[in-house]
């Protein structure tokens, strides 16, 4: 305790220096925390998007389907097996799917698309595709109506044309794009929502209707009620072709997927590929999505599925994304590493100065009987306190921003948004709440201090009292 008091008092003998050194630690901790929070938050958000709008956490597939996504690598639906899967404690629902590739066309416009046969009611458990239906769209007519309305502010009238043809799944995003504050929302939003209203129909089992991605519909110039032609290769190399009415437009948060997805009712899709009752995958909705629990669930299910099937988890199914995130993660860590290295030198500089200016004092203290060990521990405590001050202050400032950021993610507009989408990302950056990455900063700073303290401790133990007194 005495040591601690001495160390604390020592700190304030040169207040300025202590403050500057602590401030340098604060600076590094602040940047590192904020940067990590944004990185981790964005990864989580991207994975969540991919998992929740497409793969799900766990899928049961034909064992060769993932490596070779062809219609022949499918398995017959077996309700008994499904019951067995559902009896697992972590599995909430099994969502049957038939996934394949086709060429979609509308007159002269043709494009390769991802065909997804689904049971609309069951998707509620996983992809929640009904929540992603386009609810509003700023068509040229709706922009015209906005311009005609005398009650709408000039600013909104100016902004609206910039977002011509943009589709919205929520009113809040529309509100954001048009720069309407929450305060004004009740004044403008009802009218705007009415003008931009977009009506979708549903797809039902047995009916040849489809939902298509927003970007795909724009590329193929298709609207509700139009017909889309799908051509592909069916089961056992038969020809697959069919005409379907567009019932609705969805906007998925993954631009890549939005650009190529066509949802068909499962049985209609099986009919298209001449593969009645066959499935390419059973996506499983889970109770607990913690990494470890998922791994355990996968192992349990591995014993349940038949020989020609296998169980895959989201990480395997999103390999490319995992690898991208990994590369980004490592490069982020290197940047933070460089920052900490620089700060470590600053701390070392301070230690060096402290030691040099107290050489005589150390000599005196040891001469009058202070143990070298005690002296060293005071020095160590002193530096640890400087580090601690920096960490606490840095973490405090960063935490305020992070907690705010968790509630208010950064959303990009215009050119920036386009650039994000070009890389297959949603133009949105999400913060990650307080988590183990905080601990890492503490560990790093502590390590830094211990490395720096090596020098004065060696000096203290190697000190010749007589020489020190003369310094």
């Amino acid at each position: 305790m005495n040591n601690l008091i001495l160390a604390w008092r020592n700190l304030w003998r040169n207040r300025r220096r202590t403050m500057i050194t602590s401030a340098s630690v604060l600076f590094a901790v602040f940047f590192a925390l904020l940067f990590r929070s944004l990185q981790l938050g964005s990864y989580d958000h991207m994975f969540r998007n991919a998992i929740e709008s497409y793969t799900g956490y766990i899928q049961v597939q034909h064992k060769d389907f993932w490596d070779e996504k062809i219609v022949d690598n499918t398995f017959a639906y077996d309700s008994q097996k499904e019951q067995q899967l559902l009896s697992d404690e972590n599995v909430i629902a099994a969502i049957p799917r038939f996934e394949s590739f086709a060429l979609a066309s509308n007159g002269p416009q043709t494009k390769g698309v991802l065909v997804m046969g689904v049971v609309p009611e069951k998707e509620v458990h996983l992809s929640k595709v009904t929540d992603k239906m386009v609810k509003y769209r700023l068509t040229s007519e709706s922009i015209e109506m906005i311009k005609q309305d005398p009650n709408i502010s000039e600013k909104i009238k100016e902004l609206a044309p910039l977002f011509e043809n943009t589709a919205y799944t929520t009113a809040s995003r529309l509100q954001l794009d048009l720069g309407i504050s929450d305060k004004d929302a009740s004044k403008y939003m009802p009218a705007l929502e009415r003008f931009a209203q977009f009506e979708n129909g549903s797809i039902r089992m047995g009916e040849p209707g489809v939902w298509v991605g927003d970007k795909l519909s724009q590329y193929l110039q298709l609207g509700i009620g139009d017909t889309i032609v799908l051509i592909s290769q069916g089961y056992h190399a038969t020809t697959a072709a069919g005409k379907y009415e567009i019932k609705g437009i969805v906007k998925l948060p993954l631009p890549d997927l939005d650009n190529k997805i066509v949802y068909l009712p499962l049985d209609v899709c099986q009919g298209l590929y001449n593969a009645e009752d066959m499935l390419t995958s059973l996506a499983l909705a889970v109770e607990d999505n913690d990494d470890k629990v998922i791994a355990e669930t996968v192992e349990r299910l591995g014993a349940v599925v038949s020989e020609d099937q296998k169980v895959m988890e989201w990480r395997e199914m999103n390999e490319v994304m995992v690898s991208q995130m990994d590369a980004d993660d490592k490069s982020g860590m290197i940047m933070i590493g460089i920052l900490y290295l620089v700060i470590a030198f600053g701390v070392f500089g301070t230690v060096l100065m402290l030691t040099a200016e107290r050489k005589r004092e150390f000599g005196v203290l040891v001469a009058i009987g202070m143990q070298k060990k005690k002296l060293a521990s005071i020095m160590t405590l002193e530096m640890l306190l400087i580090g601690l001050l920096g960490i606490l202050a840095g973490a405090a400032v960063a935490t305020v921003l992070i907690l705010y950021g968790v509630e208010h993610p950064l959303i990009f507009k215009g050119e920036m948004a386009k650039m994000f989408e070009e890389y297959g990302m949603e133009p949105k950056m999400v913060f990650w709440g307080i988590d183990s990455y905080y601990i890492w900063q503490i560990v790093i700073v502590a390590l830094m201090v211990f490395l720096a303290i090596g020098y004065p401790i060696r000096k203290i133990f190697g000190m010749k009292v007589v020489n020190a007194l003369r310094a």
Partner: protein
Amino acid sequence: MIWKTAWKNVWRNKVRSLVVIVSVTIGIFGGVFAVAVMNGAIVQRVDAALNDEIAHIHINDPAFRDNYDIQLSIPNPEQVLSAIRETPGVNAVTARTQITGMANTATKSAGVQILGIDPDSEKEVFRLYETTLPETGNFFESESRHMLAYMGHELAKELNIIRFRIDQEVIDSLSGKAVPRELLDKLLPFEGKRFKSEKAFKKEIKGVLTLKEQHEYGGVIWEEAWSFRARSKMTLTFLDKDQVQTGAVFRIAGIYDIKNSMYEMSQVLVKNEDLMTLTGMAADEYHQMIIRLDDLESTVEVSASLAEKLPQLEVMHWKEIQPDLAMMTDMVQKFYAIFMVVILAALAFGIVNTMLMVVLERTKELGMLTAIGMNKKRVFHMIMLESVFLSLVGGVVGMIISQALIGVTAKNGINFASYAEGLEAMGYTAHIYPVISTSFFITVTVLIIITGILSSIYPALKALKLDPADALRTE
């Protein structure tokens, strides 16, 4: 005089100055090198885009890019071509047709863009042919009675045109390449096996090899197991001019590899005349004229003068075709600067601390100097210069080391093979050649000087506040 004094002052307390200098050296070195690696990746991406994928300027019907309508060809192509050739600054031009279709092999299919090209002029505009993988073909050079197609590596793997196999021959040549016996024994069970896909191959190989073996010999095994059967074929199907489904079998005339999986997956090149026969287009019907310029810097001027000459057509330069690419090139420059500023700000704390020590330590001396008539401005100057020297020495050393390392690594590049899949999906190669422009070094030097000046202000003000009489009396 004052410069010399400041310089000598730096070296009065060597250890302390060296700590600051080394920290600046490390900070600058780390920052500059990290930037060079990032920049290298981006420069390579832009190069690939300009040389292999889009070239410099595209000319087409104004509505063509909306949905690649086969009907929207360029009217009077000969006149347009000669008008383009006459434009100063144009190095080469080639004409292309472009349609959407599907590529099929016996087992697999994929949606593709089919580009009809003229091989001779194509080579003058694009360097794509230089990336042809050895022994896969020669970019339409040899005569053939079949129709020919030139495709991407990723698509070839996807369609099983490229397969992975392990047989006696592979094992023999591996042992010829000094691969240890134990490792070959592990591969023996696979003998005679053809893998269904690259993924399946990698997975099985990973299953039997240790991490170290994978790291050391994974590349060689992959290369040997990689196999392309000469005279492979695929079927391309698409809609002709009258919206009737048509298609034909094409023999592979080469496989290109540009480390951009999206492009490789989607773009198939065939000869113009073959596409014309199949689609029923006239012999000189083209959708796009693609231009390579003498000088990239003249992009905007040349495209403006072309737009003036060809008012009925859409003229777009690469920055308009891929705005994200252009925007990224601009944005990363800012990002690099911000990154360096953050590092320098972190360094500034150390410099301020040291300079503060300098001032406090020399209280008596500074008092003496003022007492004998050195004015405040000169004192301020002297301290500021010392701080600038301190940071600049470290900065220059840091820049020299990074330049040296950039020089060394630029020769063979750095291979981030374990991240290849993710990077290539975004169009970036994993084999990066670090590079940085000279102007970046100038920017960094300026930033270092500014940091030196800013971090001296507080300590120098402290020095100015000293009362010469009091200062002289201090011990």
